[in-house]
C-alpha cells in the first residue's frame, strides 16, 4: 500500500523551464535531495500522475512527483497528521 503526501519542495527552475527539486520540507524539517536518480512521466500507485523524480535523500530513496502544479511524495509509511 502506497500513500501520497503533498509537500513543500524548494525547486530550482531552470532558464528553459526545467525543474530541479533541491530540498523537501517534511514536518518542519528540511531534507536535502542528494541526487535525482531518474526522471520519467508515470502514474503513482498512491494516486495521481505526473513527472516522477526518483530522489536519493542520504541512503533513502523516494519518488517525488510533479503533479500539474505541485509536488507530492510517495511513501509506504502512513503518516496520520499530514
Amino acid at each position: 500500500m502506497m500513500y501520497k503526501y503533498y509537500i513543500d519542495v524548494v525547486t530550482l527552475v531552470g532558464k528553459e523551464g526545467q525543474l530541479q527539486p533541491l530540498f523537501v520540507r517534511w514536518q518542519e524539517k528540511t531534507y536535502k535531495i542528494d541526487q535525482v536518480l531518474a526522471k520519467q512521466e508515470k502514474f503513482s500507485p498512491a494516486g495521481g500522475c505526473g513527472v516522477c523524480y526518483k530522489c536519493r535523500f542520504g541512503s533513502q530513496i523516494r519518488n517525488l512527483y510533479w503533479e500539474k502544479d505541485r509536488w507530492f511524495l510517495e511513501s509506504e509509511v502512513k503518516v496520520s497528521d499530514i
Partner: protein
Amino acid sequence: MVEKMHRCFYNESMKRVIVHSDINHAYAQIEEMKNPAYRKVPMAVGGSEEKRNGIILAKNDLAKRYHIQTGESLREARAKCPDLLIVHPHYEEYIYYTEKIKDIYRQYTDRVESFGLDEAWMDLTHSQRLFGDGVHLASRIQEEVYRKTGMTVSMGVSFNKVFAKLGSDMKKKKGYILIDEENFRDVVWPRPVGDLLMVGHRTEAKLHQMGILTIGDLARADGTLLVRRFGKIGGMLYQFANGLDHSEVKPVGYQREIKSVGNGKTVVRDIENREQLYEVFRVIAESVAARLRDIHSKGSVVSVYMRDTGLCYIGFQQRLSQPTDLADEILHTAMFLARKDPRFDVRYRSVGIRVSDLTKLAYDQPDLFSDPRRREKERRAEAVIEEIRGRYGYHSCGMASVQLDSDLTDFDPKGTHTIHPVGFLDGSISL
C-alpha cells in the same frame, strides 16, 4: 485476421489508419486515478443534490454492476445502490487530464481531432513512415497512456472515422478493435443500426419503421429512398454504413466554427412566476451577449428552453429582424418566447437561452423608428459592465433587480461555462 490486418496496413500503399480513442468512463476514471480507494467501492461522479443538478455523469465498474445509468438522477441511482459514493465533478481536472492524454497522441501525429473531452480521432496513416505499422502504433500509444497516467483508453482502428468510432464503442476496456475493408461486413453490418454515428433515437425509430434494423440493412437499403426520407443525412448514413466515409481527421490547432452561443441553468429552487423567470433570463442573457461580443459575433435566432419539475422540456425559437449581441434584446426575445408556453402554473427547474445563426456583421442596420445610436450606446454600457466584472469580480456590478431573488440569480454562467458538447458534422453536409 489481425495478422492479415498488419500486412494490409503495412504495405507501401499506406492505407488509411484512423484511430478513435475513448477514455473509459472518463470522469470516474480520473477520480479513481487521483484517489485509487474509489476503485474499491461503487462510485459515480454526479452533480449536487443541493444545487439540484444531481444527475450521474459517469460511474465506475462497480457502480455499473448495479445497472446505474449515466444521466439518471442521484435519487434513482441511490435506490439501486444505497452505498453508492457520489463524487462531485472537478471539470478543471478533467480538462487538464484529458488534454494530457491528447498530448500523448500529438507526439505521434499532427492530426488529432477532439470529439468532446474524452474522445479523439487520430490519423496515423503518415505516422507509419516514422513509427512503423499503424495498428502496432495504436497499441503502443494505448500502453503509453496507461504508463504515464494510469488510465485506460479503448480504441477502434479502421480506415475511416465512422468505423473507428464504432470500434472503440465495441471495446470498453483497454484494448482495440480492428475494422478493415475486408472484415467490416462481418464485424459492422450485424450490429444494430442505432450503433452507427449520427443515428439517434429518433432516426433509429424511423429506420426501424422502414424495416432497417442493422447497419447491414442500412448498407443494402435503397440509397435514393433514404435520401427521400431523411434528406442529405439519409445519403450520408448510407455512405457511412458502406464504409464510404472519407472525412478527414482535423489537424492539431484546428478550431471548429462556432455555430451558436448558449447558456443554461438548473436553478437552486423552482422558478414559480414570470418575474423570477425574467431575472434568471437576465443573468443568462448577459452571459450569452458577453460571450457573443467576445467572439465578435452577432446572432439572428434566439432559442429558449424551459424544463419543468417533471423534467418535461419545452422550447421555442424566434428569428430577429437583425443580428444582435445585446443582452437586452436577447432578454426581451427570450421572455416573448417564454410566454408562448401554454401551460399555467408551471414551475421551471432549468432554463436556457441560445443564440444561433451567427454572423460577423460589424454594423447595425438602422430602422426608421428608433434612435440610430441606441444599440451602440447599449453595447458600450454592457461592455463596461463586463469590464468591471472582469476586473473586480462578477458580483461587483449588475442590475439591482437581480438582488430581489438572489437565491435564484446568484450564478455566473459566463465564468462557469466550461464544457462544450460537440457534434460530428462540421459545416454543411457535402456529398
